[in-house]
C-alpha cells in the first residue's frame, strides 16, 4: 500500500467510524430519553438554558 492509499484509507475510515459512533450514541440517548419518565408539570420544558 502506498502512502497515498494509506492516507485516503485512514482519513475515510476514521470519518466513517466516527460518524457511525455518533449515530449510535444519538440512538442510545434517544432510547434513554424514551425510557425515562418526567413529571407532568415539566411537559414541553426545554433543557437548561434553552430559549423558546
Amino acid at each position: 500500500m502506498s502512502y497515498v492509499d494509506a492516507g485516503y484509507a485512514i482519513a475515510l475510515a476514521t470519518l466513517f467510524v466516527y460518524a457511525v459512533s455518533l449515530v449510535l450514541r444519538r440512538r442510545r440517548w434517544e432510547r434513554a430519553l424514551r425510557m425515562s419518565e418526567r413529571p407532568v408539570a415539566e411537559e414541553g420544558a426545554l433543557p437548561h438554558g434553552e430559549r423558546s
Partner: protein
Amino acid sequence: MKAPAIVPPRPRWLDVVGALGVVALAFTVWLGLWITPPDVVQGNLARLLYIHPPIATVALYWAGGVAAAGSLLYLWPRTRSFFWDRLAASAVEVGAVFSVLTLVTGSLWGRPAWGTWWTWDARLTSTALLLLLEIGYLALRRVPADPAIRARRCAVAALLVAIDVPLVHFSVDWWNTLHQGGTFLDPGFQIHASASMSWTFLLAFIAFSLVFVWLLGVRYQIEVLQDVVGDQELEVSLAERWSEDAELVGVGGPEPLEGGGAP
C-alpha cells in the same frame, strides 16, 4: 404523575447535508485517485494534497471558528444561551477528529517528501498543540459541575483553543519552517495548480465541509439529548426525594424547579 419523554425531532436538512457530503466525498476520492494527472514534481504523492489541506481547513478554521464564536457568544451576557455552549463543545470534538487526521495525513505526505514522519517544525508543532488543547477541552467538559459553571469554564478553554488557530495559520510566515506556505493559493490568491487539480481540490474542500456540518449537527443533537435526560433524571430524583420528605413530616413538598432545574 409521570409522562413519557418527548424526543427532540431530527432536522431534515441535516440528512440532506450528510447525503451530499457522502456523494461529494466519493467524487473527491474518484477524481483524486484516478482522474487527475500526477504532479510534475511530486508525482502521485500530490494526490494526498487533495485531502490534507481540506481536512486541515476544517480542523483549523471551521471547527476552531465555530468553537470560538460559540464560546464568545456564550460568555457575552446578552447572547448567553446553552445553545452556544453545546455548539462550541460539538465543534471542539469534531475538530479534534479532523486535527488527528490533519497530523496523520500530513505525516504520510511528509515521510516520502521530507524523509521524516515528524519534525518539530512550527506548523506541525502548533497543530499538535491545537490537538492537545482540544483534548484538554474535552477532558474539562467531563468534569462534573453545575451546567452554567461547566459552560463558562469550557468557553474560556475554547478561547485558548482559538488562540492557537492564528498561531497555526501564520506559523509558516513567522518562523522559518520546513512546511511550505500556501499549497494551492499564494497570498495574492493566485492558483498554483492545473484546472483539473483545482477542481478536485475545490470539490474536496466542499466535501469535507459538508461532512463537518453533518458531524457537527449530529454531535449537537447528542448534547441536547444528554442535557434533557440529565435534567429529567434530576427532576425525578428531586420529586422522589420531596415526596419521601413529605411522607416523613406529613406536609407537602416544595414547589418544583422552574426551567428544567437549571440555575
